[in-house]
Every structure is written in C-alpha cells, then in structure tokens.
C-alpha cells in the first residue's frame, strides 16, 4: 500500500511539472484529487487495511495529498507569472497614453482663483458690483471733483444715455473702487451700528487706452476693510501677507507716498523685483516693481457710504490682475494685449 502511494506521488509530481497551462494543472488536480482521483481512490482503500496499519498509511497518504496540493498551487502561480512576463516583453511603455480631455483655464482666471484663495484665508468676502455704473459710484462718491481729469472723455468710457439727475451719467467702471460705496451701503443696510467690512471685489474694468502695457478691458482686484481702529499698520500687514503668498516668501513689499482722490493718506505699493532680488535691473526701478495703489479710505468716501468717519477708519487697495500676473516669475509677456488676443497657441500654454 505504501508502495502504491509513493507511485501515485511520483506520478503526480512528474505530471504536474509537465503541465503547460492552468487548465492542465486543473486537469491534473482532478486526476489525482478529484472525487474519482487516483489518490482519493487509494485513500478509500486504507479502510480495508488491518487496523494496526491504518494510522501509519493514513498519515503517509495525507502527507502525499498535501505535497500534491502544494505543488499544484505553486505550478499554477508560476505559470501565471510566466504569462505576465511574456506580455511585458511586448508592452511599449514609451507609446503615448490615451489621454482624458484636458482644456485650459485662462491665465486671468488662474490668477483670480489664486488671489481669491489668499484673501478668503484672511476672511475677505467676495462681491460683485455693476460693470456699467453710475458716475456717482465711479467718481462722485469716491471724492473725485467734477472736473477731475479721470472724468474726461479721454480717459473713461461713457455710455450713450441720458444722465440721472442724482447719479449722473453712465460709465464703464474704470476701477473696482466703484464697488466701495456700494459695499458700504450694503453693510449700513445690514447693521448700521456695527460696521465690519472686509470686501474683495474682482472685476472687469475699462479705460480708454491701448498699448503694450494697457488694454481697453482689464481686471482689478479691490480690497476694502472698514471697522473701528483700522490703521495703516493693517494695510501693511495685509499687503505683506498677499505679497508673500502670491509671489513667494522671498519677495518683500513696501508702501510709499502717492496720491489718489479716494484715499488719504495714499500709497503706492512696490514689490521687490523677482528677477534681480531687489538689487536693481533693467526690468525694475531700483529693485522695485510697482504693484498699484492703496490708502486709508478718505473720510468723504466713508460719509458717502453712510459711515461715520469719526468712529470708523478703513483702508482700500485696487491692483491690476494683469499687473500682478506679469510680475510673477516665468510669465514675462512683452505685450499685454496678447492676453485678450485669444490666440490658441498662447492659451494652450497654460
């Protein structure tokens, strides 16, 4: 009986090693271990042996069964990996992949998203106000005198429409600052006793100029913060935060005196040049690049917004989206008009 079992084992081992596929492995398994398999039949016969022989032979039979099972499993998995390696030899990983569709967001959108993210982090609320606006919000309420040059036909676009008795003519907003007094009015209507404004207004603006550094339509982002005890130090803090977030931790900013109608004091904001790192080069002015204007909200503007300038102070800034985009490293576009040319060769770069 032991001899017979050993024969079965040897037979099985040689057959398993000859198998060429998982199907053949399975056939071999059935041949030996199936319901009518050779080993299964032999094990049934153990019951016919004398009682004293049964444990020994039974043990041997079980060992053989385990060996065969193990070999079948091993053979099956080695056949599987052989198959994989033969496929690997025909796979050319340098051929192009099947790509899912991928379009492009305009650079302006990308900049706006980044700017929005930075100011949201500081608790600014994003708003949207009219692009076609009353002269009142665009100029009068921003403390522009009637005869200010910005109100000339040479600088601002006017709409062909009868002026309103109170709000004046209709203009294309030359700056996002036209949202300032609207935002103040919104807050006064909400809660006149406790003014806390932190506005971010990003919008299309329009001015009558077109050259390599100007387009008739452009974008600005405007910040307005009004509350009790808001000071120049807060403007500086906000500005620094933006500059380091948007341009990188190595860039620094400064404010210096300037002049705007709707702020007093007024500042020009500079960012250290990313090309020369503030040393001074062909692209910058003594190491600095001008980013745009800012200042403490003029008390007359607060008054126009219905806010008491004795109780509240505030700061505001309005910077060009195109401008900060151009000031980013790697995007030195020599003609701003390219941004709005909608040349696909250009758009698909970003």
């Amino acid at each position, binding site marked *: 009986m032991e001899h017979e079992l050993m024969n079965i084992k040897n037979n099985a081992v040689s057959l398993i090693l000859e198998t060429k596929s998982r199907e053949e492995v399975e056939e071999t398994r059935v041949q030996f271990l199936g319901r009518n398999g050779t080993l299964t039949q032999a094990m049934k016969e153990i019951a016919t042996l004398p009682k004293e022989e049964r444990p020994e032979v039974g043990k041997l039979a079980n060992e053989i069964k385990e060996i065969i099972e193990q070999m079948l499993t091993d053979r099956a998995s080695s056949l599987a990996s052989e198959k994989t390696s033969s496929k690997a030899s025909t796979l050319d990983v340098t051929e192009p992949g099947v790509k899912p569709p*991928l379009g492009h967001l305009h650079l302006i959108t990308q900049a706006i998203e980044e700017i929005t993210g930075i100011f949201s982090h500081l608790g600014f609320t994003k708003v949207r106000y009219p692009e076609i606006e009353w002269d009142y919000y665009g100029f009068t309420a921003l403390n522009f005198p009637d005869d200010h*040059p910005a109100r000339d036909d040479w600088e601002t676009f006017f709409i062909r*429409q009868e002026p309103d008795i109170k709000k004046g003519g209709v203009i294309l907003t030359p700056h996002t600052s036209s949202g300032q007094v609207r935002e103040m009015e919104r807050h006064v209507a909400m809660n006149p006793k406790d003014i806390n404004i932190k506005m971010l207004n990003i919008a299309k603006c329009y001015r009558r100029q077109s050259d390599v550094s100007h387009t008739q339509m452009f974008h600005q982002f405007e910040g307005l913060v009004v*509350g009790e005890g808001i000071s120049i130090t807060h403007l500086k803090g906000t500005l620094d935060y933006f500059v380091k977030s948007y341009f990188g931790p190595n860039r620094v900013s400064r404010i210096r005196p300037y*002049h705007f109608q709707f702020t007093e004091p007024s500042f020009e904001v500079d960012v250290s040049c990313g090309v020369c790192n503030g040393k001074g080069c062909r692209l910058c002015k003594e190491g600095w690049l001008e980013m745009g204007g800012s200042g403490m909200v003029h008390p007359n503007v607060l008054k126009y917004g219905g806010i008491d300038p004795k109780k509240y102070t505030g700061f505001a800034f309005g910077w060009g989206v195109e401008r900060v985009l151009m000031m980013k490293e790697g995007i030195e576009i020599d003609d701003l008009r390219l941004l709005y040319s909608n040349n696909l060769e250009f758009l698909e770069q970003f």
Partner: protein
Amino acid sequence: MNIKILDSWLREYLTTDAKPKEIAKNLSLTSISIERTEKWQSDLLYDIEVTTNRPDLMSVVGLAREAAAVLPQFHTKAIFHAPKLTTPVKQEKGDIKFRIKNDPKLVDRICAVVMEVNVKTSPKLIKDRLESTEIRSLNNLIDITNYVMRTIGHPTHVFDFDRLETESLTIRESKKDEVIETLDGKEYVLQGGDIVAEDQNGRIVDLLGIMGLKNSVVTEQTKRILFFIDNMNPKKIRKSSMSLGIRSEAAQLNEKGVDPELAYDALLFGIQLYKELAEGKIVSEIIDIYPNKPKERTITVTDEKIQTVIGVTIPLTKAEDILRSLGFSVQATKTSVSAKVPSWRASEMEIGEDLIEEIARVYGYHNLPSLLPPLVSDEPLQISRDPFFWETRVKHMLKYWGFTEIYTYSMVAEELLEGPLNEAVILRNPLDEDHVYMRKTLVPSMLQVLSENKAYKNVRLFEIANVYEKNGKNLPIERRKLAGIIKHSHASFYDVKGIVEQLGADLGIRFSFKAAKELVGADVYLEKENIGTIEELDDEIINFELNFETIIAHATLRKKFTPLSKYPAIIEDLALTVDAETPTGEIIDEIKKQSPLIRDVSLLDKYKNKRTFHIVYQSDTKNLSNEEVAEIREKILATLQKSQ
C-alpha cells in the same frame, strides 16, 4: 508726470551729506518716487515721478526744499537754500507804458516786464541743464523761460515786444472758430473758451498757459522782450490743452495748479538771468496784477486721530517738527496740532487726514509694523448660494472636458452685435470702431476667435461673462452667461447636448430641451424658463449659450440618499418599431409610464424606424420573476410597437 533733475543742480539749493543713492531711496520712501538714477556726463540724473497733487515738486527749488525736510529723518544733515532774488530798484525801471487788461475770472495773477536784450546762444551750463531735463536749448531768450520754469516751478513766457505792435494786451476767452498758429508753426481752430491774449488790433498773440504764438515769438532779430508770467484757472488749461492736443510742459504744469506766490519769484529770477545772460535792461514798469490771492488755511487734527489712522503712537512734538520742516506754521495744544498750510501746498491740503499723511510719510511708513486686520465677519458663508463657488466649479468642469477658456472684449463691433442697434448699450466715446457696442451675446465673439484660429481643426472653447441690456433710464442690466463652442469634423448636436446635461447633473439640476424655432438646435429649459440655446451652425460647429445666473440659482449641494436595493435588477434590450418622426424622449417617457418597476430607460441604437432601448427593471421589495418582467414588456410593446 516725470521730471529729470541733475544732482549738481539740486545741490545748488541743498546742502547735504546724503549720497545720490540715499537721496533717491529716501525721497522715494517718504516723498516722491525717484524711479531711477542714471549717469549723465560726469553728473548724475534723477528720474522723478511727481504725483499730480505735488506740482510744487516739479522744480529744483521745490525738490530741494522737500529733500531738506525729509532727509534728516534718516539722520543725514540737509539744509535748503532758497534762491536769492532781489527786487529791481526804482531807477532801473524804464518809461515804456504797457498795460494789461486782465479778466480776474480767467487769470489769478500776471507778472510782466519789458526788457532790452541781446539774443545769442546760452552758456554751456544752462544748455546742459536744460538738455538733461529734456528741454531743447534754442537761444538765451527762450532758454531762460524754461530754466526759470524748471528752477522755480512756474511756467513763463517771452514775447518779442516789438512784434506785438501794441501797448496793451487784453485777456479774454477765445471764441469758437478763431484760428491761431502756435510758435511751432501748427495751426489750430479754437473751440471757444480758451484763455487768450489779444493785442489792441484784436489779433490773438498768446494761448495763455499752454503755448506762445508764431506772430509774437522771439526771433534772432529780437531787441526787446515782454517777459510774461501768468497764473490761471487749471481747469480751463486742462480743457484747452486736451481738446487742442497741445501737451506742452507749461500746460501740464498749469493744469495741476501752480502756486501764484511763485509767479513773482519767477519774474525776479528771470530778470536776473536776462541781465546776466542777455545784457538785459528793464525798460518798463514791473507789472504785478494779482486779483485772486489764495486764502490762507489752517488745519487742526487731534492726537487721537493721528494715532488711530497711523496705528502707532507718534509724540505730538515729533508731529510738530515734521510739519514745521515741511513749511507749515504750527501751533499745538496737549491733544491736537494746528498747522497753517504753506502757499505751495494750498491747493491740496484741506482736512486733518492731509496733515496725518504728512506726519506719517515723513515719520516713515517703513517704520510702521505690519499687522493683520482682525478677523471679523458676521456674514455666514453659504457656499451653495455663492455664485463664485459655482462659477469656479463650472469652469473647472469644462476644463476637464477639454474646453479652453477665452476672455473676449465686452465691447464689440457692429457686425458682432446681435439684435437692433437702437436696443444696444452704446459707448459715447469708443477708442476704436471694433469696440463700440456692449455685447448682447457671447457666441459671436467665440466665432470670431474660431475664425482667427483657422488652423485648429479640433477646438472646444468656453467663456463666462456678462452681456448687457438697455434698461430705460436705469443702469443697463448685466446678465452673466455661459457660452461654449465645439468644432470638429462631423460634430454632433448630441455632443453639446450631453455636455449641457452633464453640467446640469453635476449641479443637481435637470434641463429639458425643445426644438428651437429659428435655428437648427434646441431651446434649453430649466423648469418653465427658457435659459438658452444649443445651436448647430454646420457639420463642424455647434455652440451653446446659457443664462448662468438662473443655472446657479437652481444649483444645489443637497444630496439625497436612496436605500441600496437588496434585489438584483433585470436588464434587457428591447427593439421597437415606431414612427420615424417620433422623438425618442417621448418614447422613453412613455416606456417609463408603463410600470414603476422600470428604473431606467436609455436609447441603445437607432436605425430608420427601429429603436433599441436598454431597460432596467428592479423592485425594492422582491426578486423580479421572468414572468413579471415579461408582463411589463408586453405592456410596452402593446403601447408602443407600431404594427408593420
């Protein structure tokens, strides 16, 4: 407005240890921007940007005075030397009687004198200084006017007195269509309202504050001059200068408002120079007509306000020192400071904040700390009601569906405007004819972009932007639109419809589609509202334009959980023969009506009058038997199958 000044010229009125680089840097931080310093021969040239509120700094003397005020803040010594000017003594004055009839409504001050002179070229120093400041040197008579303007800050003019042929000048407003020829030989037709001087024969001899005229300009033969300084209404100058397009240095200065107190200084300095450089001799009375002397102004600001705006404590004594150094006369109490504004700052100093600016800038913005404003917002953030959230989401969705975003101009040319002209919002003063009308639709701009990118055969574009609609006497209505376009060979309406449907699916809204009446394509509906169209332009180009505001008003982040089914679905494909004209949407609706156990129906295939539908049957309460499904199938066939 930029001005270029030589370092050596500045130092004629300023004694300081500060090196040019320090002057440039420190003035930029506290006063006006010195944008560049460049070598000029053996000297150094400052390129300075002067803001419109500081015409007093458009001069060497003004800059020296300002530098002397701010440089000591950086611990460098700086002293200002005002120009030494002497008033001519009586016996100098000649007997030529010359009268000026002024209109005080037009001109605030006129200073003038007649002198005998010798015309020649200017000495090298004058020529160099003028050239460095970008003024062309002509002859000593004209150079002196420019040199005085640059030094003192007040524009001046010189006439050939003998060419005037008159003993009086009358200042008046021009009449419409009067013609003048400026000294550079250009002819202008006046609009009326310009300030001019006419001689006793009624001939216009000067366009005041802007440019002299050919008929009275000095020549190489000039023997006697009328040196003439006029200070007038800046608004009128701006208007004339801009409408005539004469942007002379004088005009650009005068339109910002020049201190009338400087007029007399300019006269004296000029007389001095004519004596030195042109053997000048005074031959008339000195005329000084000064009808509109500016009012003196004193501004008071409290200590508390200063601290609030600046954000740090600046001792009041420090504030006083700063204001005094800038030429203010200062008086202080324990809690406030009052300052009388110097004449050269009178036009722009009005309120307490103006004083605070002076104090803060000279104290140095760079000396202030940077603090973040307090984080306070009582406005709850409702993301699903935030239009910007949805806009970003939709833009990204389209990007990942292969669309490229474009930004086209809001103003378009007439051929890109849809609808009647008289309903359009129109610019009164367009810059060019391609940007005149505020657009009513986005698609025409997209088609233009396609035509400008003809080489691209496979294109997907989108834009989200406003369109504009006239609204009677109110502000025009701005509506935000989402438009897209696809172009490729054999483009299908269903490609675009699928995009619109999936967009809706992601925003939690369901659009319906009806055949459009006036074009090949569909009107898109959201509930009962028509919110846009899909338009098949040809075999290649299909576009859509949707009312974005309505879409995001319906967009939702709300999700609803349906319990997972415990019982398997039975799926089968069912072929039906129908009228070829019957819309598939109707058939699907009809199939669904046949049993609540039909979970989903979709079109699998379509050929002539045969349609194959993919139908999913499922129950929440039990395993469906083949018999139950067969029953429903029979019902569908009975209702929809068209007998052949």
